[in-house]
């Protein structure tokens, strides 16, 4: 009976012991693996978990968290992690880690498998996630300032931008139009003169009476045309020379303006210092900023995960929270020590980090979480992130101090056109950023040595300029740059200022100043030559066309004079009037009374005319009537 009681109890005890001895740790390992996989979304390997109860502790060995974005590599791995839990809070179901140590931390290490939970063929290997606003910033970094600058130099010698050239062209266009108008007027007058000549020819072959009408009409038209032509040529001879003189004055004025403009523009030529700064060191600065912000994201993300509620065992039911006399956060890590290697650029760098006061209930704990990271090697970094969620509004402060002694080559422009290259060494970064409820406010400062500046150009007109610019750039020894951040943390307003831009701009300006006399001389000579050429060309063109017009006009006048002489002959009577009267009388165009009168006068005229031909006969024919008239008079 005694054994019957004892054996089952001993068996139960044995099972419980066996569970804790052999089953509990694997169960914890499995649970931890599953939890971490659900957080990272990729495979998590934990070689061993060892727990102890007196005092409570957890040791984890050989942990590797695969990267979901980079198959085949680990997000992070570490050799050992040791957590010492406080006993008293654990009795109240609060997980308080008095001190934790994680050793052998390494980031971005390679794995034997791809580390993905489900093979996603669409997934691509990608680098660190760069936010959209930063991508836009980097994309918009303008290298074109250098090209623009040399183009500006070139444009000083470009005739198209000279006022002389523009005015000259305007005059060409204007006088072309004017001459076309004059040509058209002369052509119209010529046509009218030709028509008159044709009318004269036609009139010669017409009947005498019709000839009278035609000649009268032709004479009238010829007079009008002559007057018009004379008026036109008077206008042409008077106005054109005056207007040409005015235009030449305009051309002279444009030349004067060009001379002044060339002198002042060359003197004020200076590239945009802001664009120079962005194109030379913008990418470097923005990427460092992104690295800093990723640290803030990380610590904020951990905070959110700690707050996430645990899944209830059975659905339904409520847990009623009773007042706690000595409240302690549910989860609290008082101190976590880490060491290992992290990648700074392409270099594995040893680091040590201390994370303190990470808790699920910062208000209750009353202390901010602080992460301090210190690296060794050629790139010592001192990073402090302070996340204070002890009040209603969480405030995250980031402070970083980073020295990079390696040489960074910066370049602006294109190798096949203009390119400015230089090296930055001993970069000293300082950052102070504050995040409050999605709003960011901060400043990133960079100080560096500047050297090995070279300015290469493939454009012949800029070679001498490049040489002088390079000499002046060599006087720049240090660079200071500042990025100011403000606004939304998702898309902050970023403004970058640096003395590098103004130093380079000054260097270029100095180079220009050195080149200025020669350039000025060249430009002014060009303006003068160009103005003279314009005037000469205009004179030649206008003079030639003017002479042609006058010649044309002379020809016209000649033809008009021939018409006029015909009309003059007509007036002098050098036509057969008898034939003219006869023709008119016989034409049937006169009215009845007029016809009678015409017949009468024609008869008398015929008599007179006949008398001229045979006076005796005419006298005899006229005697009867003469006698009667004399008798009448005597009576």
């Amino acid at each position, binding site marked *: *009976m005694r054994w019957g009681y004892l054996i089952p*109890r001993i*068996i139960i005890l044995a099972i419980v012991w066996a569970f804790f001895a052999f089953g509990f740790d694997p169960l914890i390992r499995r649970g931890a693996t599953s939890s971490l996989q659900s957080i990272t979304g990729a495979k998590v390997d934990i070689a061993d978990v060892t727990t102890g109860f007196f005092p409570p502790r957890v040791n984890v060995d050989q942990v590797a968290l695969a990267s979901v974005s980079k198959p085949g590599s680990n997000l992070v791995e570490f050799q050992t992690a040791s957590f010492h839990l406080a006993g008293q809070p654990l009795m109240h179901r609060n997980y308080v880690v008095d001190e934790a140590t994680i050793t052998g931390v390494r980031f971005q290490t390679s794995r034997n498998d791809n580390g993905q939970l489900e093979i996603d063929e669409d997934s691509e290997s990608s680098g660190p996630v760069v936010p959209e606003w930063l991508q836009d910033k980097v994309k918009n970094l303008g290298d074109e300032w250098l090209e623009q600058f040399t183009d500006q130099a070139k444009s000083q010698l470009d005739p198209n931008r000279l006022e002389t050239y523009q005015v000259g062209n305007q005059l060409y266009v204007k006088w072309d139009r004017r001459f076309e108008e004059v040509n058209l007027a002369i052509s119209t007058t010529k046509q009218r003169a030709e028509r008159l000549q044709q009318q004269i020819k036609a009139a010669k072959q017409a009947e005498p009476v019709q000839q009278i009408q035609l000649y009268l009409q032709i004479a009238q038209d010829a007079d009008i045309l002559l007057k018009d032509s004379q008026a036109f040529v008077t206008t042409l001879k008077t106005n054109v020379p005056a207007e040409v003189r005015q235009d030449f004055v305009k051309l002279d004025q444009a030349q004067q303006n060009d001379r002044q403009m060339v002198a002042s523009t060359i003197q004020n030529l200076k590239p945009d210092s802001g664009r120079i700064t962005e194109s030379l060191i913008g990418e470097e600065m923005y990427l460092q900023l992104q690295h800093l912000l990723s640290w803030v994201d990380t610590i904020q993300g951990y905070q959110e995960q700690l707050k996430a509620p645990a899944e209830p065992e059975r659905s339904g039911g*409520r847990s009623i929270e009773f007042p706690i006399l000595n409240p302690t956060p549910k989860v609290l890590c008082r101190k976590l020590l880490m060491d290992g290697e992290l990648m700074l650029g392409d270099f594995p760098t040893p680091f040590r980090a201390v994370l303190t006061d990470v808790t699920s209930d910062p208000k209750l704990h009353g202390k901010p979480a602080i992460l301090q990271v210190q690296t060794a090697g050629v790139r010592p970094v001192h990073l402090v992130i302070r996340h204070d969620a002890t009040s209603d509004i969480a405030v995250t402060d980031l402070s970083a101090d980073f020295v990079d002694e390696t040489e960074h080559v910066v370049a602006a422009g294109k190798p096949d056109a203009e390119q400015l290259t230089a090296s930055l060494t001993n970069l000293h970064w300082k950052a102070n950023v504050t995040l409050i409820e999605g709003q960011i406010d901060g400043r990133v400062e960079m100080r560096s040595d500047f050297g090995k500046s070279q300015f290469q150009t493939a454009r012949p007109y800029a070679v001498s300029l490049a040489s002088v610019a390079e000499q002046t750039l060599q006087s720049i020894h240090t660079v200071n740059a500042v990025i100011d951040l403000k606004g939304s943390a998702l898309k902050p307003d970023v403004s970058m200022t640096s003395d590098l831009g103004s130093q380079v701009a000054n260097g270029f300006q100095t180079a220009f100043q050195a080149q200025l006399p020669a350039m000025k001389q060249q430009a002014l000579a060009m303006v003068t030559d160009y103005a003279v050429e314009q005037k000469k060309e205009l004179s030649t063109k206008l003079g030639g066309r003017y002479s042609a017009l006058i010649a044309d006009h002379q020809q016209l006048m000649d033809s008009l004079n021939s018409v006029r002489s015909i009309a003059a002959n007509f007036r002098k009577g050098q036509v057969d009037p008898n034939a003219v009267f006869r023709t008119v009388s016989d034409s049937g165009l006169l009215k009845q009374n007029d016809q009678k009168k015409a017949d009468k006068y024609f008869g008398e005229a015929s008599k007179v005319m006949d008398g001229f031909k045979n006076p005796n006969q005419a006298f005899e024919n006229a005697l009867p009537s003469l006698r009667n008239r004399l008798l009448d008079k005597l009576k």
Partner: protein
Amino acid sequence: MLFLLRPIRLTLKALITQATPGQLALGFAFGVLIGMVPKGNLIALTLGIILAASRANLAVATGTILVVSFLSGYLDSAFDYVGGYVLSHPALFETWTNLYNRPLAPWTDFNNTIVMGSLLVGMVCLYPSYRLSKPLFAAYTEKAARYAKRFWLTRVLLGMEVADRLSLSE
């Protein structure tokens, strides 16, 4: 072969055979109680320890726990109501607060309405389960033993001693 079977035989013998109707009924009553209470808290563990420490029949208790655990999910709303009523009763507030501030108390999950409700209902059912099941075990144990004796596997595993004991009990 006998050497290998002996420990199993002794275990099963201890678990199953050496039991009176009272022990079987006690196992059943504990099984009802533990089966009702959600697992994974200190209350369930404590009840398990009490069960192990008692002279209750563990085989019956284990079987009952499995069956009642399966069924208790359907009674959660009732447990929630009872637990909620008790936990939110003003007169008991101070008691619960004091209890909650005791070491290990939060591990019991007693402040959960279903845990508290199922515990109370289970405790209420404890004695009735014992009283009602005891005559039944008294009446049907011998018949069950006779029935089990027919199976070759039972005879082999439990050994002839079991069969003899069962025969003697007849």
